[in-house]
């Protein structure tokens, strides 16, 4: 019996033993943490990020996350859990340090698993997004797409392919996140204030002025005009063909 075979036999018997009498095999500290983390993840995180942390309906794949890859013992993941990402719809979770440590252990374990079994993961790689024609994308950008009305390859988009890659670049192309709308509010006195739109519903309008102060008014008591540059992206969604998107991706990827 070679060493490898012996080791394999040992592993098999250990696995069988484990399956039959799990209580008699003490878990390592890491395994216990991962197991606790799996339960917590199933309760609090799986709805958005998928039960295996591979991404869900509204939350990204954590197994392919650069933040997770850069995390050491929760130094990156912990703050995101505690503070949430309100701008992206992730609430803050008020969890204890041991609970967060368990979640971190589970997320790292899942990332490791996903690397072992790449076929089982759902993820979009940069190489998946290379089917377009950059020249056709450039024509669309300057022509039918109307992109050039707001954007310039040598101006705001210079180096965009260095700032974003792969899926993130495509998501920014389709509907940029983080772009703020401007609002100009005209008070009954005739005074006009301009700032960054902070809140709007049917009943109130809120903005942050150039000094960083928040103001709000009943929507019916003032006149206001919103300049939302991202609106043009929403209007394009009903006009693109899939080829247009792929070609635009190819073109933007040349803007390094």
């Amino acid at each position, binding site marked *: 019996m070679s060493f490898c075979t012996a080791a394999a036999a040992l592993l098999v018997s250990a696995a069988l033993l484990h399956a039959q009498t799990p209580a008699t095999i003490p878990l390592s500290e890491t395994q216990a943490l991962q197991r606790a983390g*799996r*339960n917590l993840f*199933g*309760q*609090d995180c*799986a*709805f958005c990020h*998928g*039960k*295996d942390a*591979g*991404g869900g*309906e*509204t939350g*990204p*794949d954590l197994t392919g996350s650069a933040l997770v890859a850069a995390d050491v013992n929760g130094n990156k993941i912990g703050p995101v859990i505690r503070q949430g990402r309100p701008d992206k*719809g992730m*609430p803050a*979770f*008020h969890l204890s340090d041991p609970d967060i440590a368990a979640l971190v252990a589970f997320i790292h374990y899942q990332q490791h698993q996903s690397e072992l079994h*790449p*076929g*089982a*993961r*759902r*993820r*979009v790689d940069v190489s*998946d*997004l*290379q*089917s*377009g024609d950059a020249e056709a994308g450039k024509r669309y950008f300057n022509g039918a797409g109307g992109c050039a009305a707001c954007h310039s390859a040598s101006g705001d988009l210079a180096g965009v392919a260095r700032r974003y890659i792969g*899926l993130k670049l*495509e*998501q920014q192309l*389709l*509907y940029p996140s983080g772009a703020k709308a401007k609002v100009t509010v005209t008070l009954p006195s005739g005074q006009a204030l301009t700032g960054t739109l902070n*809140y*709007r*519903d*049917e*009943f109130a309008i809120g903005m942050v002025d150039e000094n960083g102060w928040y103001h709000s008014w009943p929507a019916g008591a003032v006149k206001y005009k919103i300049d939302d540059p991202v609106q043009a*992206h*929403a209007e394009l*969604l*009903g006009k*693109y063909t*899939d080829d247009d*998107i*792929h070609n635009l991706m190819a073109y933007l990827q040349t803007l390094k």
Partner: protein
Amino acid sequence: MRRMTKTNALAIGFGAVLFCAAAAAQGLDSSMLLHPPPDSWPGYHGDYSGRRHSSLTQITPQNVDQVALAWAFQTNQTALLKCSPLLVNGVLYFTVPDNVWAVDARTGHQIWHYTYPPNKGLHIGHRGVGMYKDWLYFLTPDAHLVSLNAKNGAARWNVVVADSNKGYWTTMAPLVVNNHVIIGVSGDFDNLTGYLRAIDPETGATQWQWNSTPPAGTPNMTTGGMTWMTGTYDPELNLLYWGTGNPTPVLQGGPRPGPNPYTCSIVALNPDNGKLVWAFSASPHDTHDWDAVETPVLVDGDFHGAPHKMLMQTSRNGYFFVLDRTNGKSLLTVPYGPVNWSLGVDPNGSPIPNPKKEPARDGRLIAPDEGGLTNYRSPSFDPKTGLFIVDAHPSYGIYFTKPADGTFGWAGADYGVWGKGVLEAIDYETGKLRWTHELGPHGSGAGVLTTDSGLTFSGDAEGNLMAFDTANGKTLWHAGTGGEIASSPITYELDGRQYIVTSSGGVLFAWALPKSVIGNEARFRIPTGSGTQ
């Protein structure tokens, strides 16, 4: 006065008997499920029709701006309330995963709180309980059905209804029909068979099971077809109507070529034996996770001049369907918002999927997104205006799959790109939108309730609870609730006061007119004759 005195002895004699009878009859009478009185909301949809329409008229378009908070109940949970409470004999019963509360519907104070032990099932949400006589039926994340004593929340029995180790979980509110507790199952991350099961309300024994798809591994056949939303029931036809979920693998249609019965379907079953009577395919070959589980709303009325027993659904895939519910034949199929994935509609009224819009390695832009043009929150049908009112979600998403993603579970990736909320009033005979009301970016999760006084209740993307004029969609009242509204409103009348019960975050709210306003309204109210509401 004298006449009352004359009958006093008799009254006292009968009083004890009547009191005992009333005390003994605290459970849910089955006639209450067939004809819910105004002081009840005994099933997920209120009545069996799924219309989520109330005949109550105390709150009107004229006085709704005086509606105020009657009480609020804090669950102190991080989980969002996604359920519809039941109201039976003055007590509200409602849930989040692993938790059931019984709360006084007049005051909002807790009567009891049941907690299910910690478990590994997916805690995605919970839609509420079902009730039969003195017993509640509660499904758990690890797919057990627990029967609770409605008086005190004590567990009577607990049966496993699906194998959570295989990837099933349960969230839905059981539907009680006669002596059947009908439950459905969830599970999208594994290739599993969806099914409906009828459970004996007394013993927990299985009465029948209807499988929506064949066993996993059947060549060229789909799995999936989960049954995670409460269906509706027509007592005259004795037919149960249920929507089924998407096929699996979810985004990869290759291993399950052609139509995938009975996934993404509306099915009619005999509730006594689970036999399929008819099926209608809402998405014959879904590759976008568009469960067709949205409420199958039952309406009797004219369709282009001829009377019909109809079934209507605003489906997650973006189509509004009107069917003849006696046989499942299509009367109308029309999109109610942006839809870019079909090649049109086939002669049976089913949309024809466009193969070029199936997920692909380099991505496909799809309307609507995975959340769909609407989702589990209820729509409402208003019989006076003939409007089907839905919280819609015009949206786009990008869908990917490649061979390396495999053929198990999700088998791909998809991402929402953009969406917004719009309350839409659909003319059921044409599918045309008679009015729309913008609800804000990303979308609202609030369901819809209509009342006979011409009011529509729903909410916006910022957590405002709102009342609209059903005739034209104009806002008549609102209240900021401070959280996400993820449930559908209910209404009832107790002690002559109409309540609207809604939720946001983990808080349940009861809204009503101030008693001073109700007094004035009552003084000037013109008798309607029937007096029934």
